[in-house]
């Protein structure tokens, strides 16, 4: 199914309609009818207490899981009907997690190149992209360092580089600063927001940090599996 959703002044790259998600045959309800629309280039913060469904919503939008009911469309195409989910994961969406989820025995460069290897990108082009992102995140001199040798902030910046390697249109960040100290957290978030804006990426970020959330274009407040407020 193809939808040409249009909202406000921009193209709705994410269109989640009446999303429900439950586990154990409905015994555990996580999302209870979520509607969400995100326009191209928007930075949206998802706030709310633990267990309110923020991560689950990100997983559904990123194609890592399927809703029990409802539909998620990205770039006008419903995910439920897509047979090329691998293409979607490679080219249309990038993930950042609270735990950086990097492969510790590989170097910063090797970790960042993983999405390009998966996508079969030309190595020269991939290295050029890495060079650009490493420069912007201040990791140029850390490219050959193994992840174990990097600080928490550097690891998260590496994860940011990796997420953007294949120039996805959507960046899904699940508590990206959750494991960092306040100072590093602010710096990483600033970088994340800056990169998202300059790359024209739609950022959807789950966070507990209201200060960070306030800096986004929109802040959605979630509670009991629903979006309560949209500011």
């Amino acid at each position: 199914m193809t939808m040409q959703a249009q909202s406000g002044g921009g193209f709705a790259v994410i269109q989640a309609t009446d999303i429900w998600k439950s586990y154990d045959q409905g015994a555990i309800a996580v999302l209870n009818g979520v509607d969400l629309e995100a326009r191209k280039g928007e930075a949206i913060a998802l706030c709310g207490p633990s267990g309110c469904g923020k991560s689950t919503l990100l997983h559904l939008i990123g194609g890592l899981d399927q809703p029990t009911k409802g539909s998620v469309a990205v770039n006008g195409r419903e995910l439920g009907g897509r047979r090329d989910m691998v293409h979607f994961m490679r080219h249309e969406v990038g993930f950042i997690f609270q735990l950086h989820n990097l492969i510790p025995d590989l170097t910063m460069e090797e970790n960042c190149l993983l999405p390009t290897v998966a996508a079969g990108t030309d190595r020269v082009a991939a290295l050029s992209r890495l060079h650009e992102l490493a420069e912007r995140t201040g990791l140029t001199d850390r490219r050959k360092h193994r992840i174990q040798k990097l600080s928490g902030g550097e690891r998260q910046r590496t994860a940011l580089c990796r997420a953007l390697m294949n120039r996805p249109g959507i960046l899904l960040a699940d508590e990206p600063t959750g494991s960092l100290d306040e100072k590093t957290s602010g710096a990483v978030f600033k970088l994340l927001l800056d990169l998202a804006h300059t790359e024209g990426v739609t950022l959807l970020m789950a966070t507990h940090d209201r200060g960070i959330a306030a800096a986004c274009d929109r802040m959605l407040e979630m509670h009991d599996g629903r979006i309560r407020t949209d500011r």
Partner: protein
Amino acid sequence: MIFFRLILVNLLRHKIRTVISIAGIAFSVAAMLTVVTVLEGAVGMFSSILSSGSEMIVFERNVSDLFFSDVPPSAEREIANWPIVSHADPVLFGVVSSADHPIITCFGVTAQDARIRNATWISGSASQFDMGGSPVVLGERAAEFLGASAGKDVPIGHGTFHVIGIIRTHNGFEDGGVFMPLDAAQKFFHKEGSSVITIKLHNKEDAAAFKAQVHQHYPNLIALEDAEFSRSYSQFKILKATAWAVGGCGLALGGLGVANTMIMSVFTRIREIAILRVNGFANRQIAITIFGEAALVAIAGALAGLAIGAAALYALKEVPALHGYVDVTIHPLLMLIIVLLALLTGVAGALYPAAYAMRIRAVEALRFE
């Protein structure tokens, strides 16, 4: 390159586990190489006994073992006179025994036989071979273990024989054997004819005509070219099948080791596989990393196994009791087959782990600690 790094990194992460898996394949490959080479060598040696100075062999049809074959002397005399035959040498195989040596192969041959003519005579000479009496010629190794020398008598079975010479051949069985004049052997083994007749034709292209002629005149005998005999002789087939079966069992055990390693490998990096999936790795690409890991273990094991096997063969060759019996010629084709079998075993061992890895759901695995 990164694929290779992913594979290598995981193997290096668990060095001891990797080394144990490689060792499992290595010892399996070494066992297979050693067993197959030794038995193939033994079969080759026995084949070369039959093909000494000849290209065809005539023996009794449908016998399970050449020791039981009985070719009548009349057949030998007639076949020797056929125009297409250059010469025909009857050979009688028997098993004799002496103190401490229950099995010694005995060859009843004529003085014209290639084994006698072409051997290196360490002592004595071929001219005394057909002089009558009960003379024997000993292979070099037989003389060694019987403690006999030319000019002395040696007890063999229920008789005593006069040693007229000691010869050296390139064949372990012959070197460890006893050669008797055909008539003496016939008397000793209570046989009138011979076990086989080895045939040399004037023209090799007459082989088919010769076989047809044997079949027509002696329906209870069969003529085969040497190579054809080696391929079809049931004892050789059994030996070869046994060698491959023993080696195959060893390799299967090695494969189970790889399977175990790969299962552990997948279970300990479920989260890492989920990361790959989130980064766009397709099932096929995840499977490649698993199979690649197994293949690397198998190839490393196979190469180490070939080295260990070759060393074992050379060591066996130097064991005095086996001197002359172990042919250490390792055929490149055999090595290739063993490496491919090891690779196949390794990959087969990775089937279940790869299937498991492909079923890992990123959303669940990312929660996995």
